[in-house]
């Protein structure tokens, strides 16, 4: 990888330019979320004290401040409330326009505003079902001792249920 104008960065990884989150345990305690994604599961943390199910997943319950939390499964299929299609200004890394997003009711758990993939422009409508879709993203070349090890990563979007 070359970085024009800054030759000393040739081959260097920059976390500050990474559009996806760090997922390895050294840089994120929410590593199980991403491990579950690989299994096709959409999970979050539930408080064993008060029962609150928060999203994003937490270290501490924001309702009762307990740190006694457990991972639970949430639905992987939701219902589209409405759709947007971005024609201009799609950020680097999110493909060619249109970049499609939908407001999705995840069976009453939360209303997510998420990216929709594997979907043609104009295809998705209010009331349609969408499901979790997990994909690989660039691994992080992370220093482990004196070695540089590629840490694989995944991320998620939703896709139409056909």
């Amino acid at each position, binding site marked *: 990888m070359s970085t024009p104008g800054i030759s000393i960065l040739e081959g260097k990884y920059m976390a*500050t*330019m990474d*559009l*996806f*989150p760090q997922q390895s345990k050294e840089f994120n305690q929410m590593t199980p979320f991403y491990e579950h994604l690989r299994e096709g599961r959409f999970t979050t943390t539930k408080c064993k004290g008060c029962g609150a199910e928060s*999203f*994003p997943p937490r270290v501490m319950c924001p309702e009762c401040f307990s740190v006694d939390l457990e991972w639970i499964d949430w639905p992987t299929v939701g219902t589209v409330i*409405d759709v*947007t*299609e*971005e*024609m*201009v*200004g*799609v*950020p*680097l*890394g*999110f493909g060619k326009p249109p*970049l499609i*997003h939908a*407001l999705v009711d995840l069976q009453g758990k*939360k*209303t*997510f*505003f*998420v*990216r929709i993939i594997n979907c043609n422009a104009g295809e998705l409508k209010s009331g349609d079902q969408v499901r979790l879709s997990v994909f690989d993203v660039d691994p992080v070349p992370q220093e482990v001792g004196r070695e540089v090890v590629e840490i694989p990563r995944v*991320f998620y*979007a939703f896709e139409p249920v056909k």
Partner: protein
Amino acid sequence: MDRKVCVVAGGMSKWGVRDGSQRDFFQEAAKACYDDNPLMDPKDIDGLLVASAYTERTSYQTHLAPLVAEYAGIKPKNICARVELLCASGSSAIILAYAMIKSGQADIVMVAGGEKLYTPQKWEVFYSELASVDHDWDSSQGLGLPPPVFAMVAKQHMKQYGTKKEHLAAVTVKNRRNSALNPKAQFQNAVTMEEVMSGRMIVPPLTLYDCCPITDGAAAVVLAVEEKAKEMTNKPLVYVMGTGQASVNNMSANMPNWTTWEALKIAGAQAYAKSKVSPDEINVAMTHDCFTISEIIEMEDLGFCKKGEGGVFVGDGQNDFGGKIPTNTDGGLLGCGHPFGGTGIRQGIEVMKQLRGDAIQQVPNATFGLTHNLSGFIAAHTVLIYGKEVR
């Protein structure tokens, strides 16, 4: 003794796609601020708060306040620090300057805000915007400072309340007409309803004209305790009356309502209560028109019209000169542009001028003015109320 706080000077650099660096614009803003009030001696300024959101990303510069102090020719002794709340950084800094002066921690504080957003390659600013919302959970869905979010807000508002594309367009036509008369604004030309309605689609229903641009520039104001303010200016005194700033969620999944902005209602209620002013007493407002739909919802949730009637309200010109609440009289974000840290300060300057009576387009007998910012994924709201008197 209750200390009262006044705005005694304000000025801004030219805003737009600018030649120059962040530090150049801060000097231009300081100069314009000093020129606004020749009676003021900048050497008397005892505190500096600097508002900038992207300084680390687009100028690779942290620890910005001492740099700005050095270039602005001031030597603060009570505070010299930066404040960041993205689009509301400038307003946040004014709130903190107000609090410092009111509490006796400082007497005369400069608040300067601005950004150099354009980089040698344009993709970088859009990419950097992925730092603006929850990076791990919303940015990674391709949402930066996201037109899709406001397109969704507009669609839901249209569905729930019958708001029309023409209502959105009316906001742009008004604000661009105002910016055309403001020599500091990014856009120096007015646009017609026909041009706006046939604009290039960005995210339906939002076209190019529904979205504020990316902007370089800076702005500065000076706040002072009343006793000193009286000696520092021969213009009418403008007071900060009360403020509110609220956040009830950050990530999109935790947004309580897409078309009624709960945090805005809370911030507004706080500001009105502390100022002892009601919405129908406000004579002029600068609200956060990052997208046209925002100004419509702000009219509703700030209490200038009934919930759901914002579209008809702006369509009827009720937030234009001669209407109920002249709004964004200097062009707003849609006309002036939006260098994040500068915006709240730009709004404060226009309200100061309106209340002093020397605005470019004057609202007759303006006594109370309001400024508002939203920031991030509509995740925080900031409201300030200014007046020619304090209650």
